[in-house]
């Protein structure tokens, strides 16, 4: 028999079974009648006796239509749950897809869940119980005795004040021992946090380790560069852009930092440290895709929009005799997000 036929046959068998079961339940020829205490039948009690609810053992048989339908519904849900569960097993063992696997799992659990909720709805007695709440505050006497017991014990400790002091000191040392373990997790913030990888004379290299010359970019182009020997270094990543020289409006002390309109800025956003990954050549803006901060490359990457408050550090550039671009020094400030001591 093929797989499809097998499944069809199984489905048919389930349907038949369900039908037969349902019929028997609705016609009431099967199923146990529920026992209800006379106390239940009499309605809710406001304050049940502390002895509990089943003190009364006199029972009577009740099999109402509602109950029969309830039984049928619960049975249907359970059958669906079991069927879906078997389906899950089948799909799992035959390495079926994620959708079918999760779908059958969900159906199976939903079946069980619905069955239980229907069960509680149709087949359990709904009696509202009301009980007194005892006040949470203990009687004065109890509190007094507890306090007295504590103080009596504490007096023994108090008498030996030197020992008590030593215990406190010991606890302090214990705490210090545990807290000191944190040292293993930390790393010294100096020099890592203040590190600026670039130094004067280093060539600008692309990610595939090629030097950049003054002919590499057209105005409006950009490329990510690293210091020679530190390709892929996160803290050193730098964006090199080229703009038309006549548009430059750099501060006076940076006048010679941009040979032929080449500008280099730290590529780590000063806001939250994401790579400033986009250059818009029409507006001459560098954009950080994390929080949409924008920096104007013409004015020394001053922030022009978004949440960033500090400009991207600029890297002075010069062209050597072969026309290759080199760093003219370090970044103008510490690259990356700001911190307490990070203002030079």
């Amino acid at each position, binding site marked *: 028999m093929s797989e499809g036929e097998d499944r069809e046959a199984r489905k048919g068998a389930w349907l038949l079974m369900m039908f037969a079961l349902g019929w028997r339940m609705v016609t009431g020829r099967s199923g146990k009648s529920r026992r209800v205490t006379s106390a239940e039948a009499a309605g809710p009690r406001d304050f049940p006796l502390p002895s509990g609810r089943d003190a009364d053992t006199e029972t009577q048989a009740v099999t109402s239509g509602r109950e029969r339908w309830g039984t049928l519904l619960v049975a249907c849900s359970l059958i669906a749950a079991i069927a879906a569960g078997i389906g899950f097993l089948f799909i799992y063992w035959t390495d079926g897809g994620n959708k079918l696997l999760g*779908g059958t799992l969900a159906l199976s*659990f939903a079946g*069980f*869940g619905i069955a239980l909720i229907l069960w509680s709805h149709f087949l359990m007695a709904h009696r509202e119980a009301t009980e*007194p709440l005892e006040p949470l505050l203990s009687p004065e006497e109890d509190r007094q005795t507890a306090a007295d017991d504590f103080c009596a014990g504490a007096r023994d400790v108090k008498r030996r004040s030197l020992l008590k002091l030593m215990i406190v000191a010991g606890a302090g040392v214990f705490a210090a021992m545990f807290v000191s373990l944190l040292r293993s997790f930390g790393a010294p913030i100096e020099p890592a946090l203040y590190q600026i990888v670039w130094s004067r004379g280093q060539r600008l290299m692309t990610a595939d380790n090629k030097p950049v010359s003054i002919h590499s970019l057209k105005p409006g182009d950009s490329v990510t560069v690293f210091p020679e020997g530190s390709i892929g270094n996160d803290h050193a990543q730098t964006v090199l852009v080229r703009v038309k020289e006549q548009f430059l409006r750099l501060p006076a002390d940076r006048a010679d930092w941009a040979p032929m309109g080449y500008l280099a800025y730290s*590529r780590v956003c000063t806001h939250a440290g994401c790579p400033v990954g986009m250059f818009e050549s029409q507006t001459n803006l560098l954009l950080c895709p994390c929080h949409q901060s924008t920096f104007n490359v013409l004015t020394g990457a001053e922030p022009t929009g978004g*949440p960033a408050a500090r400009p991207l550090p600029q890297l002075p550039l010069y062209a050597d005799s072969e026309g290759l671009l080199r760093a003219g020094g370090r970044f103008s400030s510490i690259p990356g997000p*700001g*911190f*307490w001591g990070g203002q030079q």
Partner: protein
Amino acid sequence: MIRRIGRWFDSRLHLAQPAREALNHVFPDHWSFMLGEIALYSFVVLIITGSFLAMFFNGSTAHLIYHGPYRALDGVEMSAAYQSVLHLCFGVPAGLLIRQMHHWAALIFIGAIVVHVARIFFTGAFRRPREINWWIGLTLLVLALSNGYFGYSILGDLLSGAGMRIGYSMMLSIPIIGPWLAFLFFGGRVPVDVTIPRMYGLHIFVVPAAISVLLALHLGIIWRQKHTNYPGPGRTDHTITGSRIWPTYTAKSIGLFFLVFAVIAALGALVQIDPVWIYGPYDPIAILPGAQPDWYLAWVEGAMRLFPGVNIYLGPYLIPEVFFPGILFPVLFFIVLYLYPFFDKFITHDNQPHHVLRHPYEQPFQTALGCAVFMFLFVLFVAAGDDVIAVATGTSVVTIRLILRILVFVAPAVTGIIVYGLCILSRHRHARGLERALESASAEGRLISGENEVTQ
């Protein structure tokens, strides 16, 4: 049989009386009392699915070249962590399903906690004697938020890398101790290899253990103090009305567990979540446009986007702009939440123990305040997707941000005023209804029980 088993345990543990009390424990029936249960059951799903995942995940940043069933990344350099996630998704039977269920369960867990907290807040359930559980509950929320962040940060994909950078920048921005704290927590200047293993340890052991202990305390206190109830006929501060734990409530509650599990399984099967294989492995110089955090961190992300670029310089020192929306705002927000029971005591001059809840309209100021805060958070939530909205509507991010910067103040104010008005109206309506009921009752010459009417 039951009796024999019972006898076996009772003769060893003396359990008959406590067992009987437990079976007869009264628990009030109301749909809103199931919100906390949904959170609890999602946590159970998290533990089950998380245990499965932990057997396969490799919290290591060792570099390797991928060769495996996912062809698109064949030959790509990645971390061992990311490689193990790919293996889990494409090589382990049911691995992808369990991983997606785990992520969905986390979203539902935190969602259920938030709605649960809102229910507690608006009905005044945090009042005496339940302040301790309010604080434990808030701590559970903080732990859940952090663990969500740790969970999606450890996968070693490009998106989680961005999240790690932003988290690091936030911690770094704290005045004076920020740099030390950030280096202590992340183990150096992010990106650094030691972060993922320690976040993994926190994610699968430390935080879940803390959540479990606090959860046990939370439930223990509910059991001890008994549950609150909505006002209604016969509801008083010194009685409790509801159905008994056994069997109705037990059946319903276990049924709810299965339903929560079913919904999470259906989502895990049908709705793709955090498809890390599409994002690619973490690469320090690459970045994903249109990146958002999981929904429960979007309020902080939105605040970080809307807050203007304002630095504070103190001589040679700096308080960076990230500090105000990223650290100060959420910390203050939670401090206000923790202290709210005291504030409520101060404005209502009410220090009595309460077991009957307060309808939101009975406390118009609190309800208006709560709704305004929710509106504020909602605008921030929207702001976290301002770039996506800009792309979808064809407007610029600048315009969207300007609108949101205005809305973030106007919308909560308007919401607060409207809700305040609605509360006053409905208080009047209820008062009138009560008057009419009293009149007709006295016309019939019935005796009015003062207690029942007052609690209406």
